[in-house]
């Protein structure tokens, strides 16, 4: 006779610092949210049914997973407590700390710092229990995958910014449907068109931004670069930069090169590519457009 045992649940506490709520919304968009929630006991979440209310968090003795959304900033109150105090309290109590979204990771738009990092610099909370999931917002799949790995006890190998390599080991450029245009240096000069690479004119940061956006897609449909909108580098410590929709150049040469590609190598390759005109890539993909 088989005995069915219910898988154990891990307790989760979701704290919000200085935030726009975007990562919560992203998580709620995860198509298999119910399956993830079945494995979690929600101690507190600002939107999901929770065991405790915000004013009762002092009663929580321990939690397996602390999720932090939003940047760390003086004066942000949650319930009757300073957010910073609650954060420090539960970093201490939690087995795992998941920083979700670029504000919680680096400080981002709203914070003076992130939890474990201030930009790229470690804070006193740069700890082995921290997993950083940057993005603006973090992709629902990144949040769910990380939670699932923690629930399953699967180790996530992380980079020096504590980001799981299986998500952030790639650049957003990997898998971009416009790679042929990048290879042959055919520029897009307008947003929203199917054709052309967005790197040379329109500010695309995909060649030096980490993330698997073009491999897992957004809303299971497409990606920014897929629909003709440049990657704005939202997973990186220097996000947001200025002039997101034009490529900074010095005498026509991009100010930043694809990740790890030396300047001479890049200029040599693009010089060669630009010497040829590939007719197919100069035409519209769909004549009907």
């Amino acid at each position, binding site marked *: 006779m088989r005995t069915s045992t219910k898988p154990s649940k891990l307790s989760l506490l979701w704290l919000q610092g200085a935030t726009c709520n975007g990562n919560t919304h992203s998580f709620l968009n995860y198509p298999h949210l119910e399956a993830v929630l079945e494995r979690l006991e929600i101690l507190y979440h600002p939107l999901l049914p929770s065991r405790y209310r915000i004013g009762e968090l002092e009663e929580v003795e321990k939690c397996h997973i602390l999720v932090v959304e939003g940047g760390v900033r003086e004066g942000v109150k949650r319930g009757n407590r300073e957010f910073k105090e609650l954060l420090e309290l539960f970093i201490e109590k939690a087995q795992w700390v998941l920083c979700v979204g670029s504000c919680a990771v680096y400080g981002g738009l709203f914070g003076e710092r992130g939890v474990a990092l201030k930009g790229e610099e470690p804070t006193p909370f740069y700890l082995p229990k921290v997993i950083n999931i940057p993005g603006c917002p973090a992709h629902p799949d990144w949040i769910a995958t990380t939670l699932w790995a923690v629930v399953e006890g699967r180790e996530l190998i992380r980079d020096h910014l504590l980001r799981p390599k299986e998500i952030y080991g790639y650049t957003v450029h990997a898998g971009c449907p416009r790679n042929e245009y990048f290879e042959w240096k055919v520029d897009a000069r307008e947003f929203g068109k199917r054709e052309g690479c967005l790197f040379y004119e329109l500010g695309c940061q995909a060649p030096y931004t980490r993330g698997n956006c073009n491999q897992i897609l957004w809303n299971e449909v497409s990606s920014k670069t897929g629909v003709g909108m440049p990657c704005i580098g939202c997973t990186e410590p220097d996000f947001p930069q200025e002039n997101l929709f034009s490529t900074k*150049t*010095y*005498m*026509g*040469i991009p*100010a930043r090169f694809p990740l790890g590609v030396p*300047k*001479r190598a890049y*200029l*040599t390759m693009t*010089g*060669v590519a*630009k*010497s*040829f005109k590939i007719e197919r890539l100069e035409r519209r993909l769909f004549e009907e457009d």
Partner: protein
Amino acid sequence: MARISREERKRQIMDTALILFSREGFFEVTMADIAQELGMSVGNLYNYFTSKEALAKELILYISKLLGEEIRKINFKTISAREKIGEIVRFYFVTAKERPELIEYFLRIYLANREIFKNGCEGFLCVSPFVTEIMIFFEEGVRSGELRDQDFFSAFGLFMGYLGGMVFLMGEGMLPNEIDYYIEDISENIYQALKA
């Protein structure tokens, strides 16, 4: 006599061909003339270059690498863009004086006979080592704030067109002074035109 390597032999052939082309004109010189000048059989020459066209393409790549390597050394120096301009102009003019066949080939054969180079030397393909270093010179000058940001070709044309024009005048015997007489003024003119 010690045997020389295939690469050295190739370089010997290219150096000889450049001098012959410069002296007699590209279309007047045959593969047989080059072989004769080198004291080798025509058949053997074809072991190194399968045709005069193939030789022509290798020559432009050879010159481009040679010029590119020197400009690269200048790019690596920790000096101002203004000083780099001076060094590039000096190097270019001294090369034009000491080895006029190099620059002449570039100006009179490569630029003037694009049909010879249309297959295999499209665009910047055969001059990439040289153009890449010039690009890096400009890019670093703008990045440091010393040069004005502008379209690459506007700046490239001003710099290289100017130098090419002077060497062309020199080749025609129309300059009243030796080419190095003009180094300082021309460097200053280029800097004034490009500075931020």
